[in-house]
């Protein structure tokens, strides 16, 4: 294929031009058929009618009557376009307005269009010959020189029209190609900019809301999502760089210190054990990170189904009641008998466990934590409230970020990943995590939509 046709714009333009030309040609053909063709058919019909009439005369009155009728018809022919020639078996003229039998006319029943000389004038005629009894021949025709001129005129006009159509097709094709290129250049310029590293670029919308705008919107949505994922990856790698460096450095220091300074085997053992514990902590952080990444990737949606959360949530409450009690706090759970939802029960259970774990951890002595859940038409709301220090308003949006630890949480154990996981689970289910002020304390709401519809993470 020509390299030119590798351009989709040229291809579309060629298709446009081709379609236009084909339809114009079809129109021209139809016009031709219904005008020039119609004239031809009228002529032929007239000749046939003549032939019919003359053959009746011949049957009634013999050759003589036929000669008389031909003379009559010629005399009565106002338009002076009728042509008759009666010839004997040797094709010699007996009667009629042609001087001699045209040499070209040999076959019976076929229309011929040929130049004739009639009364000294050259002209064009459409004729047909008939064989008569006794070996005589009859030629019936019509002078079609006027019609031929008309047909010529029509042909010229149509040819000119085709030339104009061709020109218009070319111009139209160029316009189509230009439009195509302009629309695409918008998208491709954006793509090039993004490939070059400028992730903030977006495809501009024409505002017409047409298919190209829809495409642009889809592409922009995709870019937004990629941007968010990239931002997430950047955050995680930063977090890993900063937050895991500390425990790794601590474990390393312990081991080096022990290998240099441990005086007794017992000291050495103790140092190694502490370093192992540090490393276990790092592994736990990695596992939490991987799990969040796994959830955010959305692959677990394949395992979604209709679930009842009543038992899993009751399990969480039961598990943490003892923990709360040991810390001098109380955990009360108010859960309905049935909590239908759509999703992954194990993940939601883990998310709620994280919320309750946090609440119990930050609860003051004698404080109370509550776990409630409500199903409504809009969806499911699981609420965990504590009487702890809460999260200041300006920190609330940052709290679910990976490794984020609020001021109040600096001195409690934790990885800073608990709320990240809750957020990831919420988004996987098309819901959201809301952190509100319980005055005092924190009110964490895990809202899940009622149906199976899941949002984009």
């Amino acid at each position, binding site marked *: 294929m020509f390299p030119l046709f590798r351009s989709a714009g040229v291809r579309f333009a060629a298709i446009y031009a081709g379609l236009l030309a084909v339809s114009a040609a079809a129109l021209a053909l139809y016009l031709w058929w219904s005008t020039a063709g119609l004239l031809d058919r009228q002529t032929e019909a007239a000749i046939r009618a003549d032939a019919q009439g003359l053959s009746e005369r011949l049957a009634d009155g013999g050759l003589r009557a036929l000669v008389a009728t031909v003379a009559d018809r010629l005399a009565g022919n106002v338009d002076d376009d009728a042509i008759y020639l009666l010839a004997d078996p040797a094709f010699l003229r007996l009667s009629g307005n042609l001087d001699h039998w045209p040499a070209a006319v040999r076959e019976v029943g076929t229309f011929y269009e040929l130049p004739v000389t009639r009364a000294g004038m050259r002209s064009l005629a459409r004729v047909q010959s008939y064989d008569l009894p006794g070996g005589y021949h009859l030629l019936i025709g019509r002078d079609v020189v006027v019609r031929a001129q008309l047909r010529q005129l029509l042909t010229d006009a149509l040819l000119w029209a085709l030339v104009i159509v061709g020109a218009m097709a070319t111009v139209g094709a160029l316009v189509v190609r230009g439009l195509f290129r302009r629309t695409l250049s918008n998208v491709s310029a954006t793509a090039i900019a993004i490939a070059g590293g400028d992730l903030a670029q977006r495809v501009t919308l024409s505002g017409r809301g047409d298919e190209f705008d829809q495409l642009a919107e889809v592409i922009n949505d995709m870019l937004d999502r990629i941007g968010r994922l990239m931002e997430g990856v950047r955050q995680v790698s930063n977090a890993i760089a900063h937050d895991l460096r500390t425990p790794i450095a601590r474990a390393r220091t312990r081991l080096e210190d022990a290998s240099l300074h441990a005086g007794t085997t017992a000291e050495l053992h103790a140092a190694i054990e502490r370093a192992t514990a540090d490393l276990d902590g790092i592994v736990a952080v990695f596992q939490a990170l991987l799990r969040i990444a796994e959830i955010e990737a959305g692959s*677990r949606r394949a395992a979604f189904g209709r679930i009842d959360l009543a038992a899993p949530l009751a399990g969480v409450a039961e*598990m943490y009641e003892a923990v709360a009690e*040991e810390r001098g706090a109380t955990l009360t759970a108010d859960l309905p008998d049935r909590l239908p939802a759509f999703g992954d029960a194990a993940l939601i259970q883990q998310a709620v*466990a994280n919320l309750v774990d946090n609440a119990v951890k930050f609860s003051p002595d004698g404080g109370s934590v509550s776990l409630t859940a409500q199903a409504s038409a809009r969806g499911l709301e699981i609420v965990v409230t504590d009487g702890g220090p809460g999260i200041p308003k300006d920190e609330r949006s940052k709290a679910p970020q990976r490794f984020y630890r609020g001021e109040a949480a600096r001195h409690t154990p934790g*990885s800073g990943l608990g709320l990240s996981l809750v957020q990831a689970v919420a988004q996987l289910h098309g819901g959201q995590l809301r952190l509100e002020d319980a005055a005092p304390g924190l009110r964490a709401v895990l809202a899940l939509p009622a149906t199976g519809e899941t949002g984009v993470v």
Partner: protein
Amino acid sequence: MRILVVEDDKDVAGFVVRGLKEAGHTVEHADNGRDGLFMAVSEKFDAVVLDRMLPGGIDGIKILETLRSQQNITPVLILSALADVNERVKGLKAGGDDYLTKPFAFAELLARVEALARRGKTEGPATKLTVEDLEMDLLSRQVKRAGQKIDLQPREFRLLEYLMRHAGQVVTRTMLLEGVWDYHFDPQTNVIDVHVSRLRQKVDKPFPVPLIQTIRNAGYTLRAERV
């Protein structure tokens, strides 16, 4: 017990083999899939510790599937660096009895292998569990110690049942989480310790000899303390 370890990493394999031998087991080791499969099929073991990813063209899942297709029901513990849920499910579906993610604490591995090897030997469903003077009736769901009735919450009952079924063995916190609570994630707080300590209040505190022992860096075990 006779245990087969199929693991290609020299350090991990050496560590596991040494540890299992120290715990009193007979250990065979294969460092590739082909030998591992051959040994697993041709010899009799009480348990197999199987790494998922092995050199030699035959990976752990393949070995497992071959074993199971030959009606070999030797308990298999899968060791893997692949932690995500799908991998775990894949391993268990292929016929694995337990799944442990690397890195792991040796105590965790030992406890799980011993639990698996023992499970293969239990004789039919019991209706009554007895450890020293502690008795559990699984039908009437009653617990008695030294003839004295002990009232337990449903979850405490299941926790004690799990400990009694594994009496004399070490059970780790993760095993309890999975076996009693069916949780496959690690709660940040040591919830298991809290629940075990509550159980102790009821089962051990009123009696002279404590049965629930804490094993440092490992978990718990149920047995009378030997002095």
